[in-house]
């Protein structure tokens, strides 16, 4: 369940955005319909979320998708 697959790697700024919004991992998980363990794994970049969850995360922070996620070649 790693974020790294093939040549590229998906990185994210979820931890920084979450802390800036004053949210706990559990609160963010509830907002986006995921478990706290999944938020932990996404923040640690051990799990690359689906496109749907990734959009829900970006929407939870009211920021553009590309501000939250970044694809590194």
């Amino acid at each position: 369940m790693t974020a790294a697959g093939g040549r590229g790697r998906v990185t994210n700024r979820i931890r920084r955005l979450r802390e800036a919004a004053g949210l706990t991992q559990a609160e963010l998980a509830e907002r986006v319909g995921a478990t706290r363990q999944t938020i932990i794994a996404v923040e640690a970049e051990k799990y690359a979320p689906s496109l749907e969850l990734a959009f829900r995360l970006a929407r939870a922070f009211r920021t553009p998708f590309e501000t939250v996620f970044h694809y590194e070649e």
Partner: protein
Amino acid sequence: MSEHEKFAWASLVASAAVWAFFGMRLTDGGQILDVGVRHLVWTYVATVVLMAVTHSVIAAVLAARRRGIAFKDERDNAIEARADRIEGYVVVGAINVLVIHALADAAYADHALPRFDLSSLPTLVFALITTLFAGHIVKQVATIWMYRA
């Protein structure tokens, strides 16, 4: 630790214990016993009931602790799907080993593989049920590993 990981740990321990019970009923000193059909049927039914009861108890205890049904998100589903696939590989691999062994027995009487007679009912039942247990146990180990990776 997620609820699903806790279930995997508990299922791993319970399955190993039930398999140990099954093994003790059919083997002695590493040798498969030539037991009668009644003994085999009783052992099989007891094993199935034990697996059902232990897993129901585990699910009930976990549900009582969290007071509700465990929420499953996309990562849980992805881990479960991969673990199911790995379980399938183990079962298919083990069945192929049994088939190759049976063919080797028939074609080459002096082969170097470990000896077990699949034409004997206790041996056949032991091999097939152990294959299912191996698949299930590997699935739980894979689940735990993927939650922790």
